[in-house]
């Protein structure tokens, strides 16, 4: 799979696969490991075809050992390789928490900066009808894990460009992929498509309200914006593309323009990253605010497995519209 020259349509999952292909092609130090990533191609198909192309030395099925998957990836990263480790679900973060929080994020710092830890941990997240342990969006848990980047694409083009940049970056990157987005199609530019880390995207321009959203909530917010436009409300959708590094300039510029802020994420409201984001905006841009900040998020309960009940909990375009209408 060589670089495509023209814009084409890919699913989110194909975009991840394309990024892995391109970066493994480019750099022999890049390898992929995780549960069922080789023969099976990943339970979301994101690593399909890699084994055939790059062989079992570089595409490795691991035992069900999340502590080892991340810990050993750190060991490989500090000795000259560039691992892309996959946790089959971000819900398993707890099993690898010491390895993510203290090893991946801090090994370099703790040892006086003598190492780099060029490691990407791919973490599928989000509601998909798999129950409270699997259907989590735990990105905010890692806000205090200084040393680790937190990157979250919201469409196929960003999935490709952000993953490629993450693999090339010398910092450890927690790369969250919403499982509900894998089948979603979108246009992807041709060539060596790189999206810089820490650069927010204004996914839709508007002058009345800023909606800050990431992951699946970006698409929901764009849909909400389109409907609200018919009512004469112009919504600007800002996607920070992750939580660290955070592109505060783009966020604050938008807030200064609109004076009204809605923050939308799928994780429950309490402990979600919306709280941190709101606090930053209050500290940095209170004088621009014409109305209180509203957070759109899941309620503070675990997500049950039942998709029937999940419909009542997961924020959607309608929740964003409702929040925007509530603003003065």
């Amino acid at each position: 799979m060589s670089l495509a020259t023209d814009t084409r349509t890919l699913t989110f999952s194909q975009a991840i696969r394309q990024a892995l292909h391109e970066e493994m092609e480019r750099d022999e130090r890049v390898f992929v490991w995780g549960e069922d990533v080789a023969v099976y191609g990943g339970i979301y198909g994101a690593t399909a075809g890699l084994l055939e192309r790059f062989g079992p030395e570089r595409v490795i099925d691991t035992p069900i050992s999340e502590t080892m998957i991340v810990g050993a990836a750190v060991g490989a990263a500090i000795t000259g390789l560039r691992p892309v480790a996959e946790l089959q679900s971000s819900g398993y973060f707890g099993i690898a928490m010491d390895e993510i929080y203290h090893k991946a994020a801090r090994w370099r710092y703790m040892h006086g900066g003598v190492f780099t830890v060029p490691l990407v941990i791919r973490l599928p997240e989000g509601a998909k009808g798999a129950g409270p342990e699997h259907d989590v969006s735990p990105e905010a848990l890692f806000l205090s894990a200084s040393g680790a980047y937190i990157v979250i694409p919201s469409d196929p083009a960003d999935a490709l460009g952000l993953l490629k940049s993450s693999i090339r970056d010398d910092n450890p990157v927690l790369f969250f992929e919403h499982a509900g987005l894998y089948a979603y199609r979108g246009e992807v530019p041709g060539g060596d498509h790189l999206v810089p880390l820490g650069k927010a995207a204004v996914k839709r321009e508007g002058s009345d309200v800023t909606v800050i959203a990431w992951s699946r909530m970006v698409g929901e917010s764009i849909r909400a914006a389109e409907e609200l436009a018919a009512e004469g409300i112009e919504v600007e959708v800002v996607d920070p593309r992750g939580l660290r590094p955070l592109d505060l300039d783009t966020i604050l510029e938008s807030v200064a323009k609109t004076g009204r802020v809605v923050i939308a994420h799928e994780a429950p409201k309490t402990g979600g990253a919306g709280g941190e984001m709101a606090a930053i905006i209050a500290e940095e841009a209170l004088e621009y605010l014409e109305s209180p900040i509203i957070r759109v998020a899941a309620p503070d309960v675990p997500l049950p497995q039942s998709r029937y009940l999940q419909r009542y909990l997961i924020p959607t375009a309608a929740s964003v519209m409702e929040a925007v209408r509530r603003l003065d």
Partner: protein
Amino acid sequence: MTAMDSGKLLELYESMVTMKLWDQTALRLLQEGRVLAGYHSGRGQEAIPAGGVAPLRRDDYLMYAHRGFGYTIAKGMSMAAMFGDLMANTAGATGGLGAGIPHFADPELGILGQGGTLGSCFGIATGAAFSARYRGTDQVVVCFFGDGTANRGAFHESVNAAAAWKLPVVWICENNGYAVSVPVAESTAGRIVDRAAGYGMPGVRINGMDVTEVYQATCEAVDRARAGGGPTLIEAMCHRFRGHYEGDPQVYRTDEETQRLLALDPITTAAARLMEEGAVTGEQLEELETRIQRRIDEAVEEASRAPMPGPQRVYEGLYV
């Protein structure tokens, strides 16, 4: 155990004496209030880092434990840098982040660092061994850990993967009978060495108070790993002479027990053997000590000259 030529034994003896004198010096600095953190003395266990590191090449990897600084001394880490870390000043390998729980590393020497959460070593050792093979080198990883640390779940995950993938790791468990205050018999089912069979790899239990035995067992395991024969588990039975940390009241064992241990000092044992073989005289051994102490004192002096870091130090080296 086969005999060891006295030249090699003398080398290992020198390594152990360096560790012992280092330890004494660190304790003195601690008493003088110049060490800004706790310290876990390695006194009594010197045979394991000495015999376990000596078989390594410069480019082999070391994951060391928190017990004393013997492992990194043996791997050639700068003494001034280690003292600098103890004093938390800018001479330290961490550039002032210090201190008593060592986090120094030197990629050039294959020293990969140490994690304060026990068991961090396991995954990293497996990953470094994977990396060595991936890059087509014949580097070997030696990973040291205590009996208590062997009970972390990370042990199973990492040791299993390394064995399944036949990676070049030597797992060296220093069984000193205690995890802080808890005796191994109360916390640990079966013998640690017997776990090796469960992972389908060789395991040996050795007398960790005998440097020759440690050296020979490690050489065998390192050779096997280098030749592609996969990992080995070595359980080195040993005793720590001092408390878990300085200031440990040691309510969990009697003074008599601690006193009895001193007769097993690996350094005295090696000295006796060397003299018995006529390889050295007592006088020569004393000269050796004086020489080593001078080196250590020079390192302390060098480290002492370095300034403390400024407050901006905490912001450095987090991101690339």
